[in-house]
């Protein structure tokens, strides 16, 4: 609990000192954790951080409606920190004020260089979940036809709500490929073929950039 108290007081301090005009973090709503946008130091008390904070907050840093309220400080667990590194390397983010958190630990207020050092030092060995590799091994053992059937079943669930795109800090194109309709590159119907194209192209666009944060 001490960790949360320090986090809240640091957030309030940033706002009072004017180093940030907006702090993006998590707050509790019922049993869920939803994003919190705090601009009043007195309201820093709503901020929380625990295991249930799954959303990748780095997604908000590219949004114009958030940027105009800046400078922004962001509460970042390791997954979000890695997204910040990706955005910085793609020159989408020049600087950041980061309240770095980890599992039951608060690392303090850092800038981008500090985040890079912290990731290297403490979170370099963070590997994707083992189930992911198991699933991949299973897929690799299949024949092409079995793979096609597997993905057909997977894509059948997709309703093309584009929540995956909205949740992803890597998906920041102002005009996404699915919205380019002259010609209609990717069918926007939530049917087998369009879903296939959409997920393949999204996966391709994320190749080498995905931080496996799991937000999507």
């Amino acid at each position, binding site marked *: 609990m001490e960790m949360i108290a320090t986090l809240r007081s640091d957030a309030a301090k940033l706002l009072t000192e004017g180093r940030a005009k907006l702090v993006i973090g998590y707050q509790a709503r019922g049993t869920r954790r939803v994003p919190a946008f705090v601009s009043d130091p007195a309201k820093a008390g709503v901020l929380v951080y625990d295991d249930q904070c799954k959303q990748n907050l780095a997604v908000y840093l590219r949004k114009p409606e958030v940027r105009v309220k800046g400078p922004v400080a962001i509460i970042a667990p390791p997954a979000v920190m890695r997204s910040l590194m990706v955005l910085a390397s793609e020159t989408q983010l020049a600087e950041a004020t980061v309240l770095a958190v980890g599992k039951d630990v608060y690392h303090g207020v850092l800038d981008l260089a500090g985040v890079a050092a912290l990731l290297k030092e403490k979170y370099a060995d963070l590997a994707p979940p083992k189930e992911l590799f198991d699933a991949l091994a299973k897929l690799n053992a299949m024949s092409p036809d079995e793979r*096609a059937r597997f993905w057909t079943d997977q894509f059948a669930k997709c309703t093309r709500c584009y929540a995956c795109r909205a949740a992803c800090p890597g998906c920041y194109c102002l005009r996404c490929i699915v919205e380019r309709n002259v010609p209609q590159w990717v069918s926007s119907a939530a049917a087998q073929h369009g879903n296939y194209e959409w997920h393949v192209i999204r996966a391709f666009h994320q190749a080498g950039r995905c931080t496996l944060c799991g937000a999507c």
Partner: protein
Amino acid sequence: MAHTETKTTETAAAGFQPRIVAFVCNWCTYAGADLAGTSRMQYPPNVRIVKLPCTGRIDPLFILKAFEGGADAVLVSGCHPGDCHYTSGNYHARRRWSIFRRLLDLTGIDERRLFFSWVSAAEGAKFADLIRDVTAKVAAIGSFEPANPARRRPWK
């Protein structure tokens, strides 16, 4: 892009003729194909050539579109490394292709349907050989599964 039907009757046994879409660059492979033609070299007519300024212009979506519209295989060919008319376009293409090929394979498009090659403007014979080779390989594995999600099917 108007292909809404896929032929399901074709089999390897019944004189299957593969449809191969070749994305080639203007400066090397297209000139190589031209040389093969002007030199009266014979190669199978199964290849449909799409000329682009550079292999770096090839969006992975082009390849998806080719499979969607009925291609049995896709060939991408451009200038040799170091010879790109635009300095580095073929390097971009190579990086994209190596990832995209793996991705397509993972989603159920057999890697044997995806070809990459370098053919220079002086290599008419190599182009003819390449097309013969690709056509034979695709003919051996048969037509692309019409039920594959990469194929577009009529709206139901």
